């Protein structure tokens, strides 16, 4: 009897310890990023760092506004391209798709979600870059290219979340709308989709998160020039790209400035998580 209770206690502690490890991980991540990044912000000056328009490590000038804007532009573009296509495809999956092709289609979209970003980047490099170069001119490594590729990359996220939230809407909503003489389309877009609004919004926000955090694919196609973005067809460097491009050889303040870039990225993601939490709360009420 006694040995049993000891085993119980030990396992309880093991389980609890595992849970603690998860919390520790987040704490460690925060501590290490902040400890290494924040002092740099202090040295450079928060204002100069966040709003500085020039990034010239050789002269110890570290302004990451170009990269912040780069990330925002590229993400916005991805959303503009990916969200409508994603939502429409989700509607197709949930409401139009014949049973026979559903399973392969679903499998394909799951696979799309699993394809490594290097592969996407490579695809962008050999297809989208030449296409943009030939059609619109410029080098092809541009904001536009990045937007198209990222828009495509966030599709599976948006489709997945939207589809399941569309499916969660009780069938009666659709039937009630139809019974009033509305067409299939009107019932879906005016009644079912608005009812699934919070789910759709969650999908979009997750898509934003994915687009902001995407690194490799963007590096391979966006040009990566560390200057203020000048136009759709000009190159751009995102926050993520900034870190990967220079971390290999950076030292001292330069290196800390890169870590601080990571902190800014982290804050962006926390803001997005806050949005998600707010959406969830809105649903519960």
């Amino acid at each position, binding site marked *: 009897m006694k040995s049993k209770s000891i085993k119980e206690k030990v396992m309880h502690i093991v389980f609890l310890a595992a849970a603690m490890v998860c919390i520790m991980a987040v704490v*460690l991540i925060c501590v290490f990023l902040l400890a290494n990044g924040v002092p740099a912000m202090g040295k450079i000056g928060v204002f100069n760092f966040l709003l500085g328009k020039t990034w010239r490590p050789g002269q110890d000038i570290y302004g990451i506004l170009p990269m912040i804007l780069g990330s925002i532009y590229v993400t916005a573009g991805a959303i503009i391209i990916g969200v409508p296509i994603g939502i429409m495809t989700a509607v*197709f999956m949930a409401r139009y798709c014949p049973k026979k092709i559903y399973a392969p289609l679903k499998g394909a979209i799951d696979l799309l979600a699993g394809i*490594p970003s290097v592969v996407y980047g490579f695809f962008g490099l050999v297809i989208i870059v030449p296409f943009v170069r030939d059609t619109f001119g410029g080098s092809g490594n541009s904001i536009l290219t990045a937007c198209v590729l990222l828009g*495509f990359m966030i599709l599976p996220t948006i489709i997945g979340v939207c589809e399941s939230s569309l499916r969660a809407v009780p069938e009666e909503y659709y039937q009630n709308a139809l019974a009033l003489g509305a067409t299939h389309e009107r019932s879906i877009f005016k009644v079912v989709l608005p009812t699934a609004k919070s789910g759709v919004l969650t999908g979009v926000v997750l898509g934003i998160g994915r687009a902001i955090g995407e690194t490799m694919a963007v590096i391979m196609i966006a040009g990566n020039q560390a200057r203020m973005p000048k136009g759709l067809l000009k190159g751009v460097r995102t926050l993520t790209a900034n870190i*990967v491009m220079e971390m290999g050889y950076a030292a001292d303040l330069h290196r800390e400035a890169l870590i601080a870039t*990571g902190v800014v990225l982290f804050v962006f993601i926390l803001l997005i998580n806050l949005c998600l939490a707010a959406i969830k709360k809105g649903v519960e009420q």
Partner: protein
Amino acid sequence: MKNPINQSTFKRRMREYQKRPASFVMFILVMLCACVTVLSFVFLVGYLLYKGIPNISWDLFALNYNSENVSLLPSLINTVTITFLALSVSGPTGIFAAIYLVEYAKKGNKLVKLMDLTSETLSGIPSIVYGLFGMLFFVVALDWGFSVLAGACTLAIMVLPLIMRTTQEALRSVPAEFREGAFGLGADKVRVIFKIVLPPAVPGILSGVILAVGRIVGETASLIYTAGTVAEIPESLFSSGRTLAVHMYALFNEGLYIEKAYATGVVLLVIVCAMNLLSNYVAKKLTR
């Protein structure tokens, strides 16, 4: 037998659309977008296979990497090593943490809320931030250098929330009666968990773990500055070695071996695809 009268024909539907152009436009848009998604998918995969398969040769699987054969075998071995290491850390941790949350913690517990917040935060963090952390912590603070071990630990943290969440879901879907029945017979808690609750949850947990494998195999950004980019089979866990995805990026970066990059892409795609199918297959077992 006579025909049913409620069969809606294509012609009939089109006639109904004629009077309602807005609905027709939406219908076309939905079809168009679905086509765009499907076609771009087919194009992506098709193009990669078309360009990559002819470039796959025995050379690519030579045991030693050199600039002649550009072998991907070392990277493949590294991928397997890192996947294995990462999972052996994050698997038990994630599963045990989930067990604690579902079976031990009381509802509305502060810890549960904190854990939810943690796993949400963790799952949103971009991989490059994990990479930064891994570099600062494992590579520099613990002084492991660019090493397979540092890479594996970084990825372990990265997939932790995924494993934790899928396990939580799998455990929650085990009916409460199972537990009550076993407790009613006087079994103790640990026994109930391992003998009664876990077995039916295994497929769900496994499908999460397999998804995690997919994530690890495809990861690049967080590995460049933790596991490094050496294209050899590492001598020990403390030496650097690149995974397949990093290998592909390196090939792109060097710019000399585009054909080999295609071939590497195909191998990656095949692995990811296999992982997806496997995960789906296993998850289906759960519903049966």
